[in-house]
């Protein structure tokens, strides 16, 4: 059997084993559904609330995507500025790193006070949590540009802007994408934290509501949709990476 098919089949078999284990654990130990619903009742919950799950997912999706893009739009230019200005770098980079010792969850109530219970406070939470990996990875990418390429550019009397757009930015692209992959995963966490602290919509909110109503099947359903959302967002970044830097995958199909 081909290698590719096996790579899909093995995880499916693994998932089947876990589902069976889950099922028989409940059957043998007679676990009440409020504590742990069976996989089939979770599936049934997904099936019976498609409208609610879909519309709440859409809200969470919007929070993640807008916060993520805001973090990219602000994080990348900041990394560029810090790479070019040694003064600004030595003034603010240590502070930026130190600021990471703040547990992001602790910021959520403050953001709630500032931005209210609407989309803005979630957006801010997503931004705060996904900003750092983007700045750090972009700055690393810009700094690790091949010194020889920079020398080549200098020997051609290339302008700073030309060197940036033609050499440094494309060199940093793989790093920017690795930062973006981490950021997009964190974005989902940020959105859920934001919704937990104060919201009346979104998957995180649905999860809380379902939990308080003892509707554990729905809570689990929300959890599963949430992880699906995370996977879709991550896959989108990977897809964008493949489209924007096709050369990064040349080694895979070398002739």
């Amino acid at each position, binding site marked *: 059997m081909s290698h590719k098919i096996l790579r899909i089949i093995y995880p499916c078999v693994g998932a089947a084993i876990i589902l069976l284990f889950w099922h028989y654990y409940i059957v043998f130990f007679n676990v009440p559904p409020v504590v742990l619903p069976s996989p089939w009742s979770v599936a049934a919950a997904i099936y019976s609330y498609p409208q609610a799950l879909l519309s709440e997912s859409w809200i969470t999706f919007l929070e993640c995507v807008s916060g993520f893009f805001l973090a990219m739009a602000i994080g990348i230019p900041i990394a560029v500025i810090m790479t070019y200005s040694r003064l600004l770098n030595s003034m603010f980079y240590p502070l930026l790193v130190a600021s990471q010792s703040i547990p992001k969850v602790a910021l959520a109530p403050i953001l709630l006070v500032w931005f209210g219970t609407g989309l803005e406070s979630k957006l801010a939470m997503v931004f705060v949590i996904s900003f750092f990996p983007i700045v750090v990875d972009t700055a690393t990418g810009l700094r690790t540009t*091949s010194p*020889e*390429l920079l*020398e*080549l*550019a*200098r*020997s*051609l*009397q*290339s302008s700073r802007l*030309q060197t940036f757009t*033609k*050499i440094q930015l*494309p*060199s940093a*692209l793989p790093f920017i994408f690795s930062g973006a992959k981490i950021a997009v995963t964190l974005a989902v966490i940020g959105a859920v934290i934001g919704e937990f602290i104060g919201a009346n919509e979104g998957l995180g909110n649905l999860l809380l509501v379902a939990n308080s109503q003892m509707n554990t099947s729905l809570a689990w359903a929300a959890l599963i949709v949430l992880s699906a959302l995370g996977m879709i967002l991550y896959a989108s970044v990977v897809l964008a990476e493949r489209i924007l*830097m096709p*050369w*990064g995958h*040349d*080694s895979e199909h*070398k*002739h």
Partner: protein
Amino acid sequence: MKNLTKIFKTGTGQPVVAVKDVSFEVRKGELVSLLGPSGCGKTTVLKMMGGLLPATDGLLELNGSEITKPYPGVGVVFQSPTLMPWRTVIGNVLYPMEVLGKNDARAKARAHEILQLVGLGGFENAHPRQLSGGMQQRVALCRAIIHEPSILLMDEPFGALDELTRLEMNDLLLDIRRITGATVIFVTHSISEAIYLADQVLVFSKRPAVIALRLEIDIPYPRTSQVRFLDKFTELERKAGIALGVVK
């Protein structure tokens, strides 16, 4: 235009004296090998000649005007090909033309022509990662000559290649030099490569770099690998070896 002169004299400050009181002269169209042990400072000399590094002391002149910063008409080749993986072969070759604002149809025609010359016709749209090390270095060579530089600075360009590829590349370089008429400064740590290619070999001692020996290579061009077996060639190798301290 005829009297291309580079006088080179440096005495660097305390911390690390990479190059010390080195003086030599390169005539227009000449191929000069800078031969020396690894890390002896010959690369530093090369960079200063390209205006990429300032000299601490001394005078560096090109055609009578002092070199203090990068100047037009220079092509560079490094030990590693340092191609841009995001560009195709032809995109890499045309990079200097883009920077110089001369990326027109003529430039493209020339890129095709020189890729043909180095034996990479048909690989224009390949990506660097699909090529072997030797082929990548050929692309780097094309990138260095696309803008028709009058000076070619080469920093151990074939040092990372296997012996057979290196021999091929030596002949290719001599062809390119014959066709372009460029002045070539060639840094290497291979004695036979230095002698085979050059009009003039400058043997550097260990750091700080001082010229230990200057050899005029009076073997007429065009040279083929046959000259490597001449008595004269062996004698030159012996002299360079003694100057480097590897032949006792």
